[in-house]
């Protein structure tokens, strides 16, 4: 069975003030073409379709168009689950109706989900979509107060899934879920699933299935298993597909569609194409798509950067510019944008350092009143306190303290 696994489209996202819808459309165009060419049996979108619960209309339009194209141009089953950014209800609009069109929108939490059964030449494959639900929701749906953490929720879900599989004679199985699994590397752009950080789910829960198609973490990665297979190494946005055979793990994050933060500048974003054979062996191929704008960091002195723009192959990329000049620099952004129009963020390490130094040098809780007076004197007159003056001030301070003590006694 051939499956296209993607996730974290975040349609409608605003990236440092820029709407990315156009970029997303550009990539999704390529995705649809890919789907048409590859002819998968199933296309899994593992959550975070939209960036917000109420996405902007362009994003909704884009999704609609994409879905339409995928349905029209392929015969694949589309299995789409909701993520933590999606609004379960809104995303699941008209889900039953879309079922008939091979679009399986599973956004609401169900404790015992029914699989999407897709047949291939070797038989049925049971694909269980597990949409994202926070523990509070799971609690109120099940009426079970013992579900406190995400791990508890998944334990319940996967138990039920295993029961079903057992009842069905243990066919080949695929899970798709939207969660943070322990061992995965996160980036700046993922929204935390719970405050106070107990959101990670142990990977052991997901053992025993043919393939676990995860969404939420934006780096394409396997969980556990072959380290080499996790390399989404830095480099050019090449088109060469890499053939990595038989990884030792079956749990994979597809990674986000585009780079959604500057911490992802070194990611290589891809779509995961996998083959599941009759024996549930998995073979993966990463297919990269070409974005409209890459997300990069550039660093150097202002003049340097301005010069470099002339020779850079993609000056339009979305950039984080790190200006290493020491001392004040006027109109840095203006001037940078002249050369690099899409500088979205400016960093001044020198300034940060200065600020931090100032912060460190000021430690008011521990400054004694006399030291404060000393500082005052020095700042006002440029001279330190003479001994006689210091003695005077000390005397005054002692006096005041004593009378305060007496007053409060």
């Amino acid at each position, binding site marked *: 069975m051939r499956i296209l696994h993607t996730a974290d489209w975040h349609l409608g996202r*605003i*990236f*440092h*003030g820029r709407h990315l819808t156009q970029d997303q459309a550009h990539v999704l165009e390529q995705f649809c073409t890919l789907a048409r060419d590859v002819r998968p049996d199933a296309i899994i979108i593992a959550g975070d379709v939209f960036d*917000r*619960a*109420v996405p902007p209309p362009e994003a909704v339009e884009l999704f609609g168009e994409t879905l339409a194209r995928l349905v029209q141009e392929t015969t694949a089953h589309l299995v789409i689950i909701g993520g933590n950014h999606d*609004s379960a209800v809104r995303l699941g609009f008209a889900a039953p109706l879309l079922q008939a069109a091979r679009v399986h929108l599973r956004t609401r939490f169900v404790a015992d989900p029914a699989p999407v059964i897709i047949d291939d030449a070797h038989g049925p494959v049971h694909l269980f979509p597990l949409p994202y639900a*926070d523990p*509070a929701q799971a609690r109120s749906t099940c009426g079970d107060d013992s579900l406190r953490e995400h791990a508890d929720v998944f334990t319940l879900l996967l138990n039920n899934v295993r029961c079903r599989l057992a009842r069905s004679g243990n066919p080949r199985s695929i899970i798709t879920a939207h969660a943070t699994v322990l061992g995965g590397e996160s980036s700046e752009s993922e*929204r*935390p699933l719970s*405050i106070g950080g107990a959101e990670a789910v142990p990977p052991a829960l997901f053992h025993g299935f043919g393939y676990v198609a995860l969404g939420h973490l934006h780096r394409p990665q396997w969980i556990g298993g072959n380290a080499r297979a996790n390399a989404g190494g830095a480099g050019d946005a090449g088109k060469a597909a890499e053939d990595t055979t038989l990884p030792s793990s079956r749990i994979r994050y597809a990674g986000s569609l585009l780079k959604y933060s500057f911490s992802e500048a070194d990611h290589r974003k891809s779509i995961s194409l996998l083959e599941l054979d009759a024996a549930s062996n998995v073979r993966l191929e990463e297919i990269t798509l070409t974005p409209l704008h890459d997300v990069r960091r550039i660093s150097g002195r202002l003049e340097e950067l301005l010069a470099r723009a002339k020779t850079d192959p993609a000056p339009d990329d979305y950039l984080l510019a790190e200006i290493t000049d020491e001392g*004040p*620099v*006027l*109109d*840095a*952004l*203006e001037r940078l944008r002249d050369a690099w129009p899409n500088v979205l*963020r*400016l*960093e*001044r390490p020198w*300034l940060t350092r200065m*600020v931090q130094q*100032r*912060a460190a040098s*000021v430690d*008011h*809780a521990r400054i004694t*009143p006399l030291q*404060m*007076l000393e*500082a*005052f*004197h020095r*700042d*006002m*007159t440029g001279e330190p306190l*003479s001994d*006689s*003056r210091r003695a*005077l*001030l000390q005397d*005054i*301070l002692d*006096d*005041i303290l004593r009378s305060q003590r007496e007053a409060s006694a």
Partner: protein
Amino acid sequence: MRPLQLTMQAFGPYAGRQQLDFTPLAQHPLFLVHGPTGAGKSSILDALCHALFGEVSGSSRERGAQVRSLWARPDTLTEVTLDFALGDACYRIRRRPAQQRAKKRGEGTTQEGPKAWLWQRDPSLPMEEDGTLLESGERRVDERIEALLGLTAAQFRQVIVLPQGEFRRLLDANSAERQKILQKLFDTRLHALVEQALKERAAAARGQLQELRTRRKALLDAHGLETPAALQTALQEIDRDIELSSSAIEELEKKEHLARQQLEQAREVARKLHALADAERRLQALKQQAPRHEEMQQRLKRAEQAAAAQPAHSALCERRKAEEQARKALHAAEQAARKSRKRHQEAEQHLQQMRANAPRIEQLQQDITRLESLLPQIATLDRQRHEMQQLRQECHLLEQRLKQDEQALQSARASTQAAREHLQRLQAALQQAHALALSLTLQDGAPCPVCGATEHPAPAHQRHDQHDQQAIGATARQSETTQAPALDAAPSPQALQAAQQALQQAEKREEEARQQQERQRRTLEQKQARLQALTQTLQELEAHIIPQWREEKKAASALEAMRKQHATLQQALQQAEESFLQAQQNLQLAQARLEDTKSAHEKALQQREKQEIRFAEQLLATGFDDETQWLAAQLPAEERQRMHESISTWHQQLAMAQALAQQAAQAAAGLQQPDTEALQGAWQEAEAALRQAREHHGRLLERRQALQHAAGQLQKLADEEHALRERADDLQALGALASGDNPARITLERYVLATLLEEVLLAASERLRVMSDGRYLLQRRDEARRGGGLELDVFDAWTGETRAVQTLSGGESFLAALSLALGLADVVQARSGGMRMDALFIDEGFGALDADALERALDALLRLQSQGRLIGIISHVPELRERIPARIEVIATRHGSHIRLHTG
């Protein structure tokens, strides 16, 4: 200040009673209040502010006027209660604004004034209990809240509650306002006090300097000088004067000495002349005493003559005395003898009397003996008498009994008789019955069964008439003891038998009675016989004994009495004999003594007469006529001695006086009386002059000393002044610095606040930097302007320029205000002694942010560690509802709003 529970009643859009428990929200770093427009979201903050201050959160809403819910029922009072914690202490405050309420009695409403209460409570108390009341009454509660929180309502609205549309307040505030808030939040009183202390001390130092100057002037004035230089010249002058004075004194001393000498000499002469006069006077006086002493001499001679006869005279006196004594003794002895004789006679008489009693004594003795021998008999008598008495009693008793027995016998006889009669009657009856029975059988001509006669003239017939019946009955009653049965026509054999038995019994009884009587009589006779016998014996015995002794008791007492008497008499006799003997002896002794004393007296008399003669001879020898003369001339030895001495002394004195007079005459030979007066006057003058000069000198010395002392003082003052001036200068400088007289035109307190503000801004900038994607930082405007120094600027990293905070856009300034509030809270938290800001409420403002900025702001807020701080956001932005799990939903209905709490 951390709110724990808010209860609103008839407040704003809340018609009923709404309770909002903040404690479950405390675990989340953030909570959201959402609901449709006008539902009552801001009213929750209003309620919070109203509870604490009586005002509402937005200044655009008037105090108290319209907090009452329009949907509220007239009997529901508008009331807000807030439980909050300040540090470790928990409080509850309740307010009721002025409002109309339904009258308790009657129709309509009455105006109720504003009320407020403040309690301190233990968090473990149940909700219904308020705790310990601390204050009540609007004004007092207001004051206490301000003291507890440290903020006024306006300041509260700048740092803890950021009301809708007014979040920029703190950001936009001018330096003065900001200073006030910072002063409240951070305790900078210390520095204000230092400023003040510097000022005060500088003033004090100046005052002291002034004082020193005054003292110096006073010192100089005291010596009539203008300047210290004058002092020096004065000193020099003085020295010169002293020189002069010394030499003057020398001169005068010489003069005085001379005058004194002359005076002395004159005095000497005068003294000598005076001495001479004295001596002569004295001599005269003594000479006048001569005749007296002559007389004394004479007397003395005579006395000495008398003294010769002294021993004889004394001996004579002795003899006279002795004789006197002897005479007395003799007299006494005579008296004693007489007495003794009398006593002797008396004793004799007495003895005679006693002796007369002797026969009686004999008699008594005999009687006693006799009585003693009779005692047993008497005892017997007594016993017999007693027995007789008893017997008599018994006889009497027996006689009585005998009488009784007689009576009994009589009655027994009677009853026997009755029984017999009864029996007879019965028999008769029976006979009669038989007769009757027989008579019935009688027939004329037939022989009677009894006698055989054939004629029956009078056959028996029924005669049981009433009379007989009665008689029978009466008999029966009489002889009850016999128990005669009632008779019928023919008495039954049983009856007969019974009657017979009765008779027998009666006879038996009679017999018994008789026997009894016999017995009694016999006993009586016995006893009487005995009695008789006893009487006789008694009589016989008594014949022997006299009546008084016939009874034992009496006899005993008589015996006793006799014994006593005997003893007494015997004793008396003995005593009388003894005393007589004694008296005899005494008499003999007395007589003997009489003899002795008589002879002694004789002797004494003789001796005396002898001595009288001897003495008379002596007198004549010494030229006295008689004893009286002698006695007159006599003088005791001491007296004589004294006279002798007196005379010799006088002689001595006289001699000495003569010698002295002679000497004085010699010494004063040829001398004249001098004029001491004049000389005295001269000397005094000289002396006075000298003294004056000395005084003058002394004064000069004093003055010099004073001047020197003053010079020393001046020096000291100068030194002090120097030290003080330095200090005063320092204080002045510091004070000026502290009060803003410095290049930066900033007071000490403002400086401290500025540094604090810097710290706050650093913390705020950190947040703002993140929220503005690295673009903005908050800074303090460093301006050298009095009253400035606390203005805020924002640094734009994109342009590298600093500009005023007011130039930020709506959304940007919201982020800045939020950062500032958070930064402020951070710094306050970190410092000790500052106010605790455990809560922050933000009313709207998120709507001004675009999605990206909202994302960043929310992320920043969500990443906050809760640290026990409660941050509440009021917003209608729907995105927030998805993101923030802890929510307060305000639901509006036609009848007012209510609240639902969701905790994730």
